[in-house]
Structures are given as C-alpha cells and as structure tokens.
C-alpha cells in the first residue's frame, strides 16, 4: 500500500516564451502522490506551483507555454503524452479541479442545476432525472441547505463560500480519484475559509481522495496536508512530511517562509497616551451607498447601510486595528474618514474639528494630515508617472518643497521606505509588488500626515514580502510619530502590528479592546469565530 503510487511526476519542465526570451516556469519537478493522501504544494507567487498542476491537466495555454520534458504517470499512462480526447476523459472522470475564484468558474447565465447536470450527462449515461437527483445529493453533501430548491438558482444568488461549495460538488460528481485544489480558500473570508477547509478534509476522508492542495498559506498547508512540497522560482526546494517540514526545515528558503508566519504579539507597544484628547473621534457615523429605484421622473433614493452608527476613537500615536470580513463596512469606514465616500450623518472629529463640516477649500488643506495606503499596489500608482513625479507631486502642490529642494526630499522619502535612490526615474510597472507598495507608503508619508489609514496594505503581497512591509510600517510610525488606522481581515497581522483592535460585523462594531486582551479573552461570539479560524502551525 505504502509504495503504491497513484500519480508519479518525473522531471517535469515547463517553459514560457515571452517577448524577452524564454522563462522556465517549472524546472525538473518530481513528486508522487499516494492514494488517499493530501499533498500540499507551497510557494509564493511565481513559484510555479499552479503551472505544474495545470501542465498535468493539459491546461497550459500553448503557445506561449510549453511542456518541454518530463513524465506524469497515472495508472501507467503518461498524462503529458495523451491525446486531447483521452485527456478530456481523465479530466472529467479521474482528476477534478477546484479553483481560487468560484465566481469566474461558474457560468453566470446558467442555473446551478443546468451546470451540474450538463457535466454529469457529458460523462455518464443516465437520465436527466437521475442526474438531477445525484446533483442534489452532491449539494447536500457539501453542506448546502435546501439543496433541492437552491439548485434552480443562479450563481450570483450564492455567496462566495457557497459558490466554492458548488464547485466542490461539481468536482465530486465526477467521482474523481485525484482532486487538485488551487488556492481554493484564498478569495474567501477567514471564517468561511475554515468551513471550506473542514469540508474538503472531510470529503477527502469519506471518499478516500488523493488531493493536491496548492496554497501560499503555510498555516492552511499545515492543517490540510500529509506531505508538503516547497517550491521557489520553479524549483523544488524541499519535500517531506508536514511534521518534518514544519519542525525540522533544512533549507534556508523554507526557514524564511516559516519565520514570515506571524505568531507573535506586537514587539514594542506604541506610546499612546490615553489621557490626551484623541486624534480622531468618530461619533455615530452612518455611511450608505445610494441606489435609485422608481421611474425616471419619480426617483426614490435608497441607502444601503455600509457603516451603521459606528463610534470609534484613535489615540495619538497608536495603531488601531480594524478587523472584519468582506461586507463588514471596515473599508467604507476608512474611506469615509479620508473623505473618499460621503457620510450621511454623524461626526468625524479630527483634532476636535468635524471633517464633515469643512468647506471644499479647507477640506483640501486638511487632506494633508490624513493619508491613505491602498490594498493593491498595482492599481494605486499612476502607470504614466515616474516614481519621482509620483512623490514630488504632493510635495509641490502643498508647497512643502520647491523646485530646488524637491529632489532631496524625494530621496529622503526613498531612504525612509528602503528603496534605492537610483530608481526614482523608473515607472511603476518596472517594480515588484513589494517595491510598489513601498512607493505607495512613501507617497502617503510625503505630506507628513498625522493619521494614516491603511486599507489591507499587505494582503496582496507574498508572505515574505508581507513581513518586510509590516516591519517597515512599524518603523515609520515610530520614526515619524504617526497614528494609524490599520484595516485588515487577517488576525495574525493585526496582532503583530496593532495596540488596540476594533471588530466590525455587518456595519456595526461588535467588540473593541487592547490587542492582547482581545486575543486572549474575546468577549463576542463573532470575535471568537475569527480567532478560531486562524490556521495555526
């Protein structure tokens, strides 16, 4: 049993032809998968972990991609040499896949029932009625309530987690022997992620599936996998049992990945003074998004609540964490403080001045003091401006520098965020994600603001980069005496960075407190769920 392998991959090498020559996406990868086992493939973006699995399924777009050499033996047959028709048979019956984004994998114009039944009828000779029964049974198995009714709904009527359950049901209907899961929980909220992981684990055991689980998240890998492959830049770095990899990593890169997982509390507390007047005091804030109903001449304005009667205070010099899942209103709250969205009622007192009452001219002056760092470093920099122009613009507009001093100031900012001064004439697309986020941080601190609103600034970054950016943020807040509102869905990041934490759910604050206190003794049920959902090593 132990030496019987379901799938054996040998010396897999995948190339991509690009404008600047060939890049090797996967280099001499060999691994094997035993029946009923979970193999975790761990790596950062660009490590080739997904490409390797897509190559097995014949899903590499060719050109530009090319499987150059290697073998993938599945029941003695080489998947890489198979005809397209045979491969399609394998994909439908033997090896199923679930993807990261359940939204794009389901056809939005077809009912769930039709999509499931269609897939079944393609591969099995059964009647439509039987197919429907089987589909409903599969939906029940993946935990969809009222499956008999919901099967006739469209994908947009399901939440993200529910859609992922539908995708899993679809994969199970093929009764596969191998399930390839490509970051299946990355797009989901943490509490939903925990449910889906438990579901996959349960199904794996009850159906005796072999699973290849691709993830960038070591915590998730630790929870799911029996064996782990660590990949970097297309190469296999280390492989072994999960226990061995986590307890006794031998390679430098594996150790680096492991140390980037944040399990610690904040290294040094900020010197926030509780008795001083707070820097920011939000009182009974209501923010909604307007939508219009009714006919053209009889418009009715309706507000859907994004932020519902929220009051928070931020003390001078502290980092306040704002935690919640998507749709909790945490980003909307952050954006209304920066005045990117308009609030309907309430007060935002900044240095005891209400931001909601300011005239347009005063507001533009005040904007200097509150700056924002955005989530996506690819979208938050103007692609047509050099780093120098991006950083010089706020300085010149607000007259913090003139034409002769601006270069020194920009260089100073580059030093502050750890970027080489020689790069100032480069454009954003020539930088990596982490470097771009450093530029975005430099832009935010350029105006010497008092408050920074950081909206998920590290969630688009790889784990090792994430750790660097977080320590940069800590260092900068100390150096420039900054106060920060740090918005995140990731509890471990919040614990590492924040002095106090506010938890939001469905537009309301459900709990707030000192970070360590909240982590050790959460009061609210929802906070407890969030904390329980952190996968631990």
């Amino acid at each position: 049993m132990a030496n019987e392998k379901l799938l054996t991959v040998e010396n897999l090498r995948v190339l991509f032809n690009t404008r600047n020559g060939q890049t090797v996406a996967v280099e001499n990868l060999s691994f094997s998968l035993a029946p009923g086992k979970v193999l975790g493939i761990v790596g950062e973006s660009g490590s080739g972990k997904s490409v390797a699995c897509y190559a097995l399924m014949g899903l590499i777009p060719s050109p530009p991609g090319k499987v150059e050499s290697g073998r993938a033996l599945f029941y003695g047959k080489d998947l890489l040499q198979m005809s397209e028709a045979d491969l399609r048979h394998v994909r439908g019956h033997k090896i199923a896949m679930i993807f990261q984004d359940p939204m794009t994998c389901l056809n939005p114009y077809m009912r769930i029932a039709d999509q499931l039944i269609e897939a079944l009828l393609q591969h099995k000779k059964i009647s439509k009625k039987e197919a429907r029964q089987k589909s409903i049974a599969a939906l029940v198995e993946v935990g969809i309530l009222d499956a008999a009714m919901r099967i006739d709904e469209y994908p947009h009527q399901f939440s993200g987690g529910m859609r992922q359950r539908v995708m899993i049901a679809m994969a199970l209907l093929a009764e596969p022997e191998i399930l390839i899961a490509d970051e299946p929980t990355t797009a989901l909220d943490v509490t939903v992620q925990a449910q889906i992981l438990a579901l996959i684990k349960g199904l794996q055991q009850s159906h005796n599936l072999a699973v290849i689980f691709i993830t960038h998240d070591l915590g998730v890998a630790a929870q799911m996998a029996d064996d782990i492959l660590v990949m970097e830049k297309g190469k296999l770095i280390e492989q072994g049992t999960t226990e061995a990899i986590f307890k006794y990593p031998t390679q430098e890169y594996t150790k680096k990945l492991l140390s980037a997982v944040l399990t610690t509390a904040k290294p040094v507390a900020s010197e926030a003074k509780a008795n001083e007047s707070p820097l920011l005091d939000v009182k009974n804030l209501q923010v909604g998004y307007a939508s219009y109903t009714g006919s053209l001449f009889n418009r009715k304005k309706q507000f859907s609540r994004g932020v519902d009667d929220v009051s928070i205070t931020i003390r001078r010099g502290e980092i306040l964490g704002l935690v919640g899942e998507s749709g909790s209103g945490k980003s909307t709250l952050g954006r209304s403080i920066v005045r990117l969205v308009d609030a309907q009622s309430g007060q935002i007192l900044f240095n005891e001045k209400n931001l909601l009452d300011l005239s347009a001219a005063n507001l533009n002056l005040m904007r200097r003091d509150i700056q924002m760092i955005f989530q996506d470093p690819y979208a938050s920099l103007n692609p047509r401006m050099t780093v120098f122009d991006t950083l010089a613009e706020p300085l010149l507009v607000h007259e913090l520098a003139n034409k002769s001093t601006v270069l020194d100031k920009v260089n100073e900012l580059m030093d502050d965020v750890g970027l080489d001064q020689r790069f100032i004439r480069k454009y954003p697309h020539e930088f990596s994600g982490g470097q771009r986020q450093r530029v975005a941080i430099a832009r935010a601190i350029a105006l010497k603001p008092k408050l920074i609103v950081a909206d998920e600034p590290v969630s688009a970054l790889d784990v090792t980069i994430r750790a660097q950016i977080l320590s940069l943020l800590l260092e900068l807040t100390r150096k420039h005496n900054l106060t920060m509102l740090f918005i995140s869905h990731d509890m471990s990041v919040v614990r590492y960075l924040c002095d106090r934490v506010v938890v939001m759910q469905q537009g309301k604050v459900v709990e707030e407190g000192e970070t360590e206190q909240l982590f050790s003794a959460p009061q609210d049920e929802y906070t407890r769920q969030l904390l329980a959902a952190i996968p631990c090593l």
Partner: protein
Amino acid sequence: MLNNELSAQSQPLEKGTSLTQDAFARLRKNKMAMASLLILLLIIVVSLLTPWIAPYSYEEQNLDLGASAPSAAHWLGTDVLGRDQLTRIMYGSRISLMVGFIATAVALTIGVLWGSVAGFVGGRVDAIMMRIVDALYALPFTIFIILLSVIFGSSLLLLFLAIGAVEWLTMARIVRGQVLTIKRQEFVEAAISMGLSPWRIISRHLIPNVLGPVIVYTTLTIPSVILLESFLSFLGLGVQPPASSWGSLISDGVETMEEYPWLLIFPGLVLTITLFSLNFLGDGLRDALDPRASKD
C-alpha cells in the same frame, strides 16, 4: 520635468522606460505601420513644399491644351481647362490635409476635455453634458452643413468648424467611458486624498491614462474627416474653384470619367493611399499601445 536638478545627482540614475516608449518600441517592429508612417511623412512634406516645387501654377489655364493625357510635360495630364493635374493634386493635398489635421485637432481638444470633465465630475453635470452630446448627435449632419453654408456662405473656416463640431462627439463619449473606469482606480483616489485640485487630477492623472485609445481613435478620425471634406466639396459645399482639394478634384473627375479617366484615377489613388496609411498606422498604434489585445 525637473531634468536639470536630476543631472546634478552624483550616482548614476537608472532610467526607466515609460509605457509610451515601450509602445513605440513595439510600433517600430510593425513593418506595415512604419511604412505607412513614412508614406504619410512624404505626403506631408510634399504638400508643405508645394508652392516651391510645384511644376506649374494651379490656376494657370491652357485652353489650347485642353484635357491631355499624361505626358512628359504634364506627368499626370491636364484637366479640361488645361491646368496641370499634378500641381492641382499637390495644392489639393494642402487643403485636404489641413482640414484633416485641424478639424481633428479641434475635435480632439473639445472631445477630450468635455469627456474627461463629464466622466470625472459625474452625477448631474455628467448627465447634462452627455445629453448635450446626444442632442448634437441627433442633428442630421448634411442638413446642418447646408444650413451653415446658406447662412454664412461657404468658406474654409466654416468647413473646419462644421466638421470639428461633429467629430468631437464620438471622442467625448470614448474619453468619458475610459475616465469612468480609470477614476475608480486607487491611484485617482490617492490623488483625491492628497488634496489635489480636480483640474490637476484630470490633466495629470486621467488624461495621460486615456491617451492610448484617444491616439488610436485620432488616426482613424483624420481619414474620416478627409473623406467628409471630399464629400462636402463633391456636393459643392466645400472648397471653391480655382482652389482644389482631393474631394473637389475627384468630383470634377467623375463628370468626365468616360472621356478622361486619369482626372479621376490619380486624385482617387492619392486619397486612397493616404487613407490606407492612416488606417494601418492606427491599427499598428492600437496593437502597440495595448499588447494584450493583439493576436501574438
């Protein structure tokens, strides 16, 4: 911007390649587009130098000669009044190209400003500005021009205005659509939260990022404007004799097509070559500016 300060820097700077430079590197590899660009430059240079290099005067008649076929003295022949065809085509290109470029420039300026302001400000302002565009769209163009020329008499200036006034509408719509998607991006929000003025956001952050589609559309507008001018001159509403444009030459040529075909063929050929070149260049620019959209 601020190059002089940068040169004072002691360490060598690493120079970046902007997206525009990237695009031109790609365009340079497109043989069709580069050939088109060369042909266009040749036509433009010839039309600029016409008063000095034209073999004859464009109004000098030679009734004895009449309509003569191409010969050594008159390479492209003469028209019914004995005027040199080559000279008339060269002078005609001055007017046709001028109409093409100026009317397009007018359309470009109005359209980009109108569209980006409407898109960025949004709300009621956007609704009103775009309804004005819709209303102008609804005017039948030919009747509009005929009315204008009845009221003001036909002149070249009127031609620019009339064509420009029609062509900017599409440009405004394209730019507005682009601005709507770009203004949701975080770098525009970052610019707002830095307290930049709306005008600065539009000019520095929005317009540079919509230029790609705008440039492409411009190269496609120029030929349609040249065609419009030809059409108007053909109807007798544009250029008045003895001045000529490609359109008026073709119009004259059509009348005598059966007896003297060269009077139609040569101006038609020049117009066609120019339009083809502009279209190839536009295609090439589109592929160069948006490499994902092209096939390879």
